[in-house]
């Protein structure tokens, strides 16, 4: 099984720690994982802003980088959802379709493909889980509070395998943090207010760390935490699963 590691552009540039943890975690499970060096971005920032028609270059580049792999794994629900739903290539439709079927968000790859049953990790902290919407409502990596359906959570099932972790309860378990891609600047007032409210829920329940499958939501909440001078930190789920 050959796995291509897709590291979203902003994770590559600003959060290499999350990417390194993802790589090391996959290596720990004996996965043959490679990072194609010419990758850039999934194209979502343009597409969600209404410029999907400008993403041809990104799509072609993505296919070029990842066509050869059996699986593509990324530490992001949002970028994976974008590729899964929107990648297309008029010149090579089959390759595009194949990509959309073999791309996985990290925690789903761990629970559904590798079928991870135990982890050798320790994280002795109070942790709040942020349900990133695109992973949750888009990729269905956990149940959703709106639906009348059985409860489950792939990220939480993995976190529960971590020693000494204390997962806190939230008042609103799956409210959006307000990042929303370019929404975070085009609708600055609402985006910031949503972020403040989400952070407040975690803080009120004693979170030392806020974790999740998407660094973008965490980056947004980190910006608010830092501005408030809070000691609470954000951490990508891969870094907890790879800790200790």
């Amino acid at each position, binding site marked *: 099984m050959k796995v291509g590691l897709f590291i979203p*552009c902003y994770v590559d540039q*600003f959060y*290499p720690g999350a990417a390194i943890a993802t790589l090391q975690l996959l290596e720990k499970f004996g996965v043959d994982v490679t990072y194609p060096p010419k990758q850039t971005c999934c194209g979502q920032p*343009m597409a969600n802003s*209404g410029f999907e028609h400008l993403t041809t270059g*990104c799509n072609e580049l993505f296919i070029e980088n990842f066509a050869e792999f059996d699986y593509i794994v990324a530490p992001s629900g949002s970028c994976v959802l974008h590729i899964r739903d929107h990648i297309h290539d008029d010149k090579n439709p089959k390759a595009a379709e194949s990509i959309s079927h073999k791309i996985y968000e990290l925690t789903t790859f761990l629970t559904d493909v590798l079928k991870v049953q135990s982890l050798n990790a320790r994280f002795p902290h109070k942790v709040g889980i942020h349900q990133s919407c695109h992973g949750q409502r888009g990729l269905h990596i956990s149940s959703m509070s709106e639906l009348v359906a059985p409860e489950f959570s792939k990220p939480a099932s993995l976190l529960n395998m971590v020693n000494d972790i204390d997962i806190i309860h939230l008042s609103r378990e799956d409210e959006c943090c307000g990042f929303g891609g370019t929404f*975070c600047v085009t609708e600055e007032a609402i985006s910031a207010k949503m*972020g403040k409210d989400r952070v407040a829920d975690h803080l009120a329940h004693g979170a030392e760390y806020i974790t999740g499958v998407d660094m973008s939501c965490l980056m*947004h909440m980190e910006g*608010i935490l830092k501005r408030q001078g809070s000691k609470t930190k954000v951490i990508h789920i891969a870094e907890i699963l790879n800790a200790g």
Partner: protein
Amino acid sequence: MEHTTKDHAELAQEFNRDEERVNWHDETLWFIREKRDKAAHNIPEWEALRETASQIKNNVLSNLDNYLQQFEKAAIANGVTVHWAADATEHNQIVHKLLNEVGVNRMVKSKSMLTEECGLNEYLAHHGIEVIDSDLGERIVQLAGEPPSHIVLPCIHKKKEEIGEIFHQNLGTAAGISDPQFLTETARQHLREVFLTRRAALTGVNFAVAETGEFVVCTNEGNADMGAHLADIHIASMGIEKLIPERKHLGVFLRLLTRSATGQPITTYSSHFKKPRPGSQMHIILVDNGRSVQLGREDFRNSLKCIRCGACMNTCPVYRRSGGHSYHSAIAGPIGSILAPNLDMKQYADLPFASTLCGSCSNVCPVKINIHEQLYKWRQVLVKDGYAPTGKKAGMQLMTWTLSSPGLYHMAGKAGRWVLKYAPFAVNNKLNPWYIHRDLPTPPAQSFGEWYKQNRK
């Protein structure tokens, strides 16, 4: 309807100047969302019910022409006069003409979002006809000179103290009263006089049954019934998408409607209107106003399934924190944002962008409209049709070039991290919208790509 040149982001920013009010608005609507959750979870077959409703509406939309004709025929046979209005203007003219024919210049009206969409109150006022809205929430915003901010809870943005002040100024109550019971009783006495004296009543329509020609109006206050039963002429305005095929399908929709809207099992009054009382008139106006255009848009046609429950507004984290008026459209929130651009792409080009695409709206929708996917699709249509600001276009083009080229991307990444590290003042200022309420990430020494080159290859 509100006329404004400000877009959603600007209006939302204004609403957010008073953070305490935003918190109160958010919590009030979240409370209703939670009531909806409890009501839905009490129905084990809830998801099957949503699917059934969605499929019934699919059938309606695919056979709308036939159902409309079937409905018209049955309604006429019941003694109802049926009118067809192609747009808002024609609808308003028909109402005006009907009132003129019976020589009436004062009308009582129960809740009808369609008449908000058509601007009926303003139109009639301009022609010397007084309209009094009889839904309590609508009456309050009418007295305040504002449009409703929510389709089910029109004055949800007003605190009880503010309502006390509106009543003090308009209905003669003492100043400083905010007791809900007292204020409701005041409204009751005020509206009682209206019901008893108005000879014309207009109601909306929640469901129209093609099989029987009857229509159903749902209210919690009984105000539609009070108005219609005491008037000589009852006019019912309905969008052409309000049809359901048969009476038996009502059970599906009535179970979903109020559970989704407020968490109640059913509306207090679900009144069936079929034929006029002897000596009185009953009219139905079937209004298109852009609906057949929307029906022709493949990606957006199922927005016409909407039964106007407002659940998408109550759950929307943006709506809860921006207030209904920030959508500057008769129908606010997520559903309004996919309906409004169909009416006027230029005026409502901002609305599909007033969302994080979190998807909660689609999950609560009782008829399973893929609202957040339609928001995404509207963005593509609006940009392609030229409704994107020029600056945004240039920025996106630059981003596209950078992200389509690994070389440019690596250079830009390095430059960005360098700026953050050595010249943070270039981005840490109020010209950068991110920085107003958030700090920027601390730039790492190297990117993952650079680390990988050193450590793995």
